Structures are given as structure tokens and as C-alpha cells.
């Protein structure tokens, strides 16, 4: 028995409607469809490919769309040794990605330069671009990459794109939206 009020609706007629916070929906949408930009530079790229293949299946997380065009990507996965010769090219690709963008530094070489403390290797891609998640390993197992991706998803779910406007209200929100 439905009440006839001006603001009520009948789900049998109008379909299902979910009420939620804008930030929660936005974060949910963004984190479950992270299209990676595979900056596969060295051996970690093989494990990246393994994570995208069927056994470890990055498609479960919506991230199987590895578009090699930075204009269509959300997250850059820097997988491999960043040499000084390649460093500025990585930075240029990062600058071509549209906002919102994130960076995962996969493996020891991308995080800190790895075992290559030498004249030719940039000691960590975070000297050039801001990194959100570091994954250690040489190379990290595909499960480690997926765990890093899940950590990035948790980070994205804590973002506030709209709630910051009202500081008093922000204090009342729970830590993670959705």
C-alpha cells in the first residue's frame, strides 16, 4: 500500500533509484574502472602482462583496458627501470594524462632505483612524478600488483571531491565513503 505524497515515487512505475552521496558514487565509479597506462619499461612489464592474463586476471578490477594512449588512461603503472634517458619521456606521458590520474610505482626499480645505483638509472620515479602506491618486489608477483591496485582503490574511495566545500560537514563524514 503506497502513500500518495507529492515527493514519493512508486518503484514499480519509475524503476529502482538509489540515494547516495555524490562522492561515494564518483569514487566507486572511478576506482572500479581504472584504465592503466602500462609504462612497461623492463622485467616488471612481464609480471604486469601476467597480471593482465587469465590466471591473475586484472579484469576482475575493471583494469584490463590497457590503452597505450595516455589520453584515455587513469593510472600509470610504471613497471621497470627508469633510466635517465627515458625519465623525461615518462614525465611527458604523465603530463598528457587527463585528471584524475594516479601513479603506481611497480617494483624496486621504479620505487627507488632498485639494485641499479649507477650513473644511468633514475633513483625512483617519484623524483619526477607524484606516486600514489609503491609496490616492492623484483619483480613483484602479479598478486602483489593486484594488492597494490586494491590499495589504490581504497585510496580513491577516501577522496573527497565535493565534501570539502563545507568544512563543518566534512568532520562528520565517515573515513571511507562507499
Amino acid at each position, binding site marked *: 500500500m503506497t502513500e500518495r505524497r507529492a515527493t514519493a515515487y512508486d518503484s514499480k512505475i519509475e524503476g529502482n533509484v538509489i540515494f547516495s552521496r555524490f562522492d561515494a558514487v564518483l569514487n566507486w565509479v572511478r576506482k572500479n574502472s581504472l584504465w592503466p597506462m602500462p609504462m612497461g619499461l623492463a622485467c616488471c612489464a612481464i609480471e604486469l602482462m601476467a597480471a593482465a592474463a587469465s590466471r591473475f586476471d586484472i579484469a576482475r578490477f575493471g583494469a584490463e583496458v590497457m590503452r597505450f594512449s595516455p589520453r584515455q588512461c587513469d593510472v600509470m603503472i610504471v613497471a621497470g627501470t627508469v633510466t*635517465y634517458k627515458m625519465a623525461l619521456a615518462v614525465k611527458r606521458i604523465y603530463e598528457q594524462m587527463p585528471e584524475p590520474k594516479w601513479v603506481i610505482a611497480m617494483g624496486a626499480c621504479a620505487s627507488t632505483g632498485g639494485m641499479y645505483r649507477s*650513473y644511468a638509472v633514475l633513483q625512483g620515479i617519484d623524483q619526477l612524478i607524484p606516486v600514489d602506491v609503491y609496490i616492492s618486489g623484483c619483480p613483484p608477483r602479479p598478486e602483489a600488483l593486484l594488492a597494490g591496485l586494491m590499495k589504490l582503490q581504497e585510496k580513491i574511495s577516501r577522496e573527497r571531491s565535493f565534501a570539502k566545500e563545507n568544512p563543518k560537514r566534512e568532520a562528520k563524514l565517515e573515513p571511507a565513503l562507499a
Partner: protein
Amino acid sequence: MAVTAQELFESFEKAWGEKISQKVEFRGETSYTIGADNLRDIARFCRDQLRFDYLLDITSIDNLGEDPRFEIVYHLYSMPHAAHLRLKLKVPEETETVDTVCDIWPTANWHEREVYDMMGIKFRGHPDLRRILMWEGYPYFPLRKDFPLEGLPSEMPDVAFTKVSPLEGGPFVTVPGTGGSKDREPRARPPEL
């Protein structure tokens, strides 16, 4: 018709005996040290007469402190005879250019570019002598013994930059030989020079 390696070396020595400054035989490998003036003639002789048609590698050595500072080493292999030969060339520091062997073995193109990039030895007659691993405009020659392992800072705006990498007390080296893995673990052992 496979000739034995020994016969190949004998014909090499018969043709170039006076021009060879040193011959080393070690565990079945033969190396001849030759002079830079005869390089192209010897190379053409090896390729045409002795059928050393495969240049495996050209590499360079920096003996900092000795008088001919650099050495260039050519590794040759003969596919019809299945024989290896090594030719060494001593290059003093004042000599800046050495003859190229690109027209004799085309694979020398990139090997000589690498020697130029890492040691600074130029090759006369090379069709495309530019850096191959570092970028053009990089001011140093990294594999010389007076270049530090951690690098030197350099800046080329819009192309590349380099910084000094943190060595944290010396290169991480291992101690070879027996001993458990705990002894052989690579640790920061500063080089005792």
C-alpha cells in the same frame, strides 16, 4: 673443408709475424696484440683469407695508469672452420681516433658506437658515430676508470638529466669463493684501492 684452428693461426703468423707484438694462448684461446696501423689490413686478411667472417664483439678496456691507456679487443669467429680469434689493439690516450672496421664487418657499427659512448675512442670512417646508450650531449664517458660508479650530475634541459645516486658507503659487492651465503652476501664494502 674445415681447417683446424692451429693451421689458421699458423697462416696468420706467417703473414703478419713482425706486426704482432704479443701472442697469448690460454686454455685453448689465442689472442694477438697488433698495432693500430695494421688494423684494417689484418681485419681484411682475417675475413677474406682466413674466413673469420663473424665479428662477435668489439669491446674496450681502460687501464688507467698504464701507458697505452686503452685497449680495443676484437673477438672473431670463423663459421666455416669453427675457430675463435681475439685481436687486441693498444690505444694510447693521445690517440683519439682508430680506424673503423664497419665496412669489413657491418656489425661493428653499433659496437664501435658503444666504444665511443663509453670510452670516448673515436673511429675514423665510421658512417654514424654518435652515442648509443647515453644521449647526445652527455658530457662524460661513463666506463672510464676515473668516472665514479654513482655518476656525475649533468643537465640537458628537455633531453635528459643525471644526478649522483646514493651509494650509502660504497658499492655493494660480494666476496667470491667459499663461505656461506651470509659471508657472500653483497654488502657495502668500499673499494680498497
